């Protein structure tokens, strides 16, 4: 792999990542947004996190898989329960990773 090209790719990745991150705070933070827009933005966290998560659970290999071999999906259920009942971020991540490792070890 040509590392010089990789370097320029990284610079390009930085640019296209930074612009969407910074533009809205620069452009919007100085003005009053209509209440409906603020409410809409209030649903963005839930929507965007779920939009990223659910496909990786239902179709980790790019096809829907409800089979028992879909470790990602089945481990998500106890992981979700841990998050709901403990409200503990680290515990949730640790249980999730631990269960995946255990499933792979024992099955």
């Amino acid at each position, binding site marked *: 792999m040509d590392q010089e090209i990789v370097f320029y790719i990284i610079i390009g990745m930085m640019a296209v990542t930074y612009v969407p991150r910074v533009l809205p705070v620069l452009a919007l933070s100085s003005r009053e947004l209509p209440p409906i827009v603020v409410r809409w933005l209030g649903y963005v966290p*839930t929507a965007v996190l779920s939009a990223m998560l659910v496909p990786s659970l239902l179709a980790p290999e790019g096809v829907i898989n409800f089979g028992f071999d879909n470790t990602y999906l089945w481990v998500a259920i106890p992981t979700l329960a841990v998050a709901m009942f403990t409200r503990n971020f680290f515990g949730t991540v640790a249980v999730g990773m631990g*269960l995946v490792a255990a499933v792979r070890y024992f099955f």
Partner: protein
Amino acid sequence: METTMSSQKIRFNDALMSAIKQALPIVLGFLPVGFAYGVLARKTGISVDNTVLMSLLVFAGSAQFIAVGLLASGASAMSVIITTFVVNLRHLLMSAALSPYLRKWSKLELAAFGFQLTDESFAVHSTRFAKGDVGKSETFLINSIAQLAWVGGTVLGIVSSSLISDIKPMGLDYALPAMFIALLIFQIKDRTHVVVGVITGLISTALALGGAGQWNVIIATLIGASLGVALSWTKK
């Protein structure tokens, strides 16, 4: 003079302690994911310098994994950059969602804040800001600690990459989904949020499988947030 100095110092120490406490969950998530990225990038044949540089300059978990995968498959520079753009376009919505809380910030502060905006720090800040915790030094400290963990995890991954043949037996590849599960659960405030979460996730999956490529996250989010507004109206 001396008293103001020491009280400033105390205030900074308070902010630092509070930032560490709030950043700790992100740190514990970022270390294994950064580690997995470091291992993967080195195994793919990306140099040590470039592997660290990507974590420093791009600082975007999923995009870095996708980029490594694309580079491994011999994709063109342009396709890696365009895919990164589409994958990270979701931050546009996160940045917009946080903007109402950042009224009093200078342009330079906003420019610095934007650079370190990630899914995880967004989730933490949107909870903090909604509670009225908008302290600048605390915000920047949380972001910097998080990035330090990301880069640190990357470096640990690089160092261990020759010892580890596969990250899968350790479950490290599940750090990202597990993190998103926790972050998502912490966002749920009422039943409307549950409906929005479920529907958005299903739409996103349908779009991803239906050939929307990496656009699925953005399109599904736009639909899901609109659905939330519509639902909150019908409830009134």
